[in-house]
């Protein structure tokens, strides 16, 4: 079974009846590993479509959860159930509950470090006091505003208030939470979440290839959310110093937010500052300060390293890239593509009005970046298949476009793999207008292919 990956969470959704004989067939360790390889930091089995389960059925998942957790340090558990199912699971496992339970996918996302919609007002209740506290801390660390009801009466009273809360959390249990270096993109900044004790292990858990390729595709601001870091040793100090020095070649900035030096030598801070790392107390000190964001280079891409030429390897594989893109857009719009022209040049867009764009980087045996520029009409049409209806909500279209570009990236990966070329893909980026795209690519030379879908112009641009 394949997972749907959303905001760093891999959701598996079995359907029907779950017992000892079927449980192992629904999910394999390979399925989970494949999902983790795509940067998932939480693996959840949705019980939304499961009408019956017994202990044996759940056990087959739980055994896999334990293996995956110990190998990959990610959060594992179940989601999407009603109170009856929640009570059944609690009853099955009682004091042996090592996994997490999230009543809905929306609630699970609040606990994912990759979740981008922060500042949610959340009412929560759990009869276990330590669970209430653990949830409040996690939610607060993830940038939300948790309100904890200390008793069922208080919860009932508060939950009756209309529109007071964005989300209400009940029937949720936090097992061991993940320790992976989670990644999320906020605007043009990439936020990494680190926690606990930072030591030599950071070199293994931090995805350096992903980081380097984020630099290549134009990200310049990297924020380490360090609220949950207890201490750092000299190995981690060296790691971050080197990371910062390497990023300096790209004009990149690394910031630490919320780092406490209670149990870390104070002189470490000076060393890190000497290597260019900046320190902030609160995430909002950066993200809510637009001037500072600009100053830190979040939306600037100009530097020497970026101007890498398109090379023969990339051009040789061009048909694969175009195949992947065109086939995906054709699939999503159910319309036919006609190629109008192809050139090696800097990007030429013509009119900037009514266009949105997205990009995705790839790296491995070869590297580069695919940029897709859509007339808003095509973008909406392409997203309709995923959304299920027409929409004028630009934010929703941009979010869905990111999913679409993910499909393109996945298809590129598959097509190249057929030719024994192994690549990974970065998170997709979207651009609400052409100016924000040009900040990244205007000086880059690449292959531009102009396509037409039902007479609407669409631009494919491949660069490095």
């Amino acid at each position, binding site marked *: *079974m*394949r*997972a*749907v*990956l*959303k905001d760093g969470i891999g*959701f598996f*959704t*079995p*359907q*029907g*009846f*779950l017992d000892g*004989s*079927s449980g*192992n*067939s*629904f999910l394999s360790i390979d399925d989970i590993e494949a999902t983790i390889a795509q940067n998932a930091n939480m693996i959840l089995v949705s019980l*939304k*479509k499961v*009408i*019956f389960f*017994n202990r044996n059925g759940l056990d087959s998942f739980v055994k896999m959860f334990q293996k995956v957790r110990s190998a990959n340090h990610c959060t594992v558990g179940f989601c999407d159930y009603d109170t009856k199912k929640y009570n059944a699971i609690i009853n099955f496992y009682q004091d042996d509950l090592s996994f997490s339970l999230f009543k809905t996918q929306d609630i699970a996302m609040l606990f994912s470090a990759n979740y981008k919609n922060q500042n949610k007002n959340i009412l929560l209740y759990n009869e276990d006091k330590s669970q209430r506290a653990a949830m409040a801390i996690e939610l607060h660390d993830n940038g939300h505003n948790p309100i904890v009801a200390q008793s069922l009466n208080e919860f009932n009273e508060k939950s009756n208030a209309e529109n007071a809360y964005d989300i209400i959390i009940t029937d949720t249990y936090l097992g061991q939470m993940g320790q992976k270096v989670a990644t999320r993109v906020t605007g043009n900044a990439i936020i990494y979440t680190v926690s606990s004790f930072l030591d030599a292990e950071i070199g293994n858990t931090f995805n350096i290839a992903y980081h380097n390729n984020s630099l290549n595709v134009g990200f310049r601001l990297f924020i380490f959310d360090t609220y949950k870091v207890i201490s750092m040793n000299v190995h981690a100090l060296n790691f971050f110093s080197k990371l910062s020095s390497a990023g300096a070649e790209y004009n990149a900035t690394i910031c630490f937010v919320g780092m406490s030096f209670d149990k870390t030598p104070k002189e470490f801070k000076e060393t890190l500052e000497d290597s260019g790392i900046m320190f902030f107390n609160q995430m909002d000190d950066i993200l809510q300060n637009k001037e500072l964001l600009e100053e830190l280079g979040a939306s600037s891409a100009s530097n020497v390293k970026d101007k890498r030429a*398109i090379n*023969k390897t990339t*051009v*040789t594989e*061009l*048909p694969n890239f*175009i*195949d992947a893109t*065109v*086939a*995906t857009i*054709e*699939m999503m719009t*159910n*319309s*036919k*593509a*006609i*190629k109008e022209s*192809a*050139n*090696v040049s800097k990007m030429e867009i013509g009119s900037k009005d009514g266009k949105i764009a997205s990009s995705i980087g790839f790296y491995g045996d070869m590297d580069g970046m695919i940029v897709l520029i859509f007339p808003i009409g095509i973008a909406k049409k392409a997203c*309709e*298949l*995923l959304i*299920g209806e027409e929409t004028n909500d630009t934010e929703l279209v941009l979010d869905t476009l990111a*999913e*679409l570009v*993910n*499909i393109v990236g*996945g*298809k590129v990966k*598959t097509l190249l793999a057929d030719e024994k070329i192994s690549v990974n893909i970065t998170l997709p980026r979207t651009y609400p207008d052409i100016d924000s795209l040009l900040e990244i690519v205007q000086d880059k030379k690449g*292959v531009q*292919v102009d*396509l037409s879908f039902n007479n609407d112009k669409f631009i494919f641009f491949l660069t490095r």
Partner: protein
Amino acid sequence: MIVAKIMYINIKYPIMITKETIDSFINKIPPAPKALKETLLHLNTGDLIKAANAAKEDKALSSYLKILVNKPIYGFKNEVSEVSQIFGILGVSRSRQAVYNYMMTLLSPSKWVLFKLNRVVFYNLQADLSMNWQKILTHLDIDDSDILSSISLLPASIIVSEALFCEKKKDVELLRSVNQIDLNTILQRLCGVDLFDICQQIAQKWEMPQKISDILQAASGLKPSEDEMTNRLGKWMHLLLFYTLSQSKYIQAELNDFIDFQIDYVSDIYEEFSNLMEIT
């Protein structure tokens, strides 16, 4: 050099699935063979001997009936090999159901691509569904030949999915890796018709009774029938489908999530179903 190479790129991509693809699929369905039609005609009049004689004329049908009824789920101790014997044991209604099951196999591909199925697993699926559907109808105290046969059309939804999506397997997988969307919804959003509408067209082409199509549409879980009995049967059939597709062999065939299970639709019959199937 680079520019010259680019100019040779030729774009010829098939579009996903269109109404024309569906029409072409329907048009390619052959009419029911003569021997089959005659067999059904005699079964409809209750003449098992004439029906068996007609069925013997079609070697593939005879062979299929033999394979089907000798599956363990049918529970016969000794091998049954003569068509007349098979019809005699099954009786008119179940013989008719078996013949309709055979008709569905005429549509199934020789090699499955989208689903990890083969002839044996597909026949097992038909047998599992048929036997449990009979159990359900006995429980509901329904003795109706058309209703008993309606289960035969259900696997057509799997065959149609295979036919329409087999060349787009990787696209479908990618699409489903970013969005929880089933094949039925993809088809509905792309073409405005769903798998069950196409199954209905197949039923019409093969002159199956209307009642069979009506129950199948309700069994999609998405189109409740206004007729109370049809809707009730649709619920039982929908739940039976997912009860069956939760078996290990069908999960491994990747059938479990080809369409969406509508839990709410079947919630009022679940307890009764689980008692009947002795689910613990």
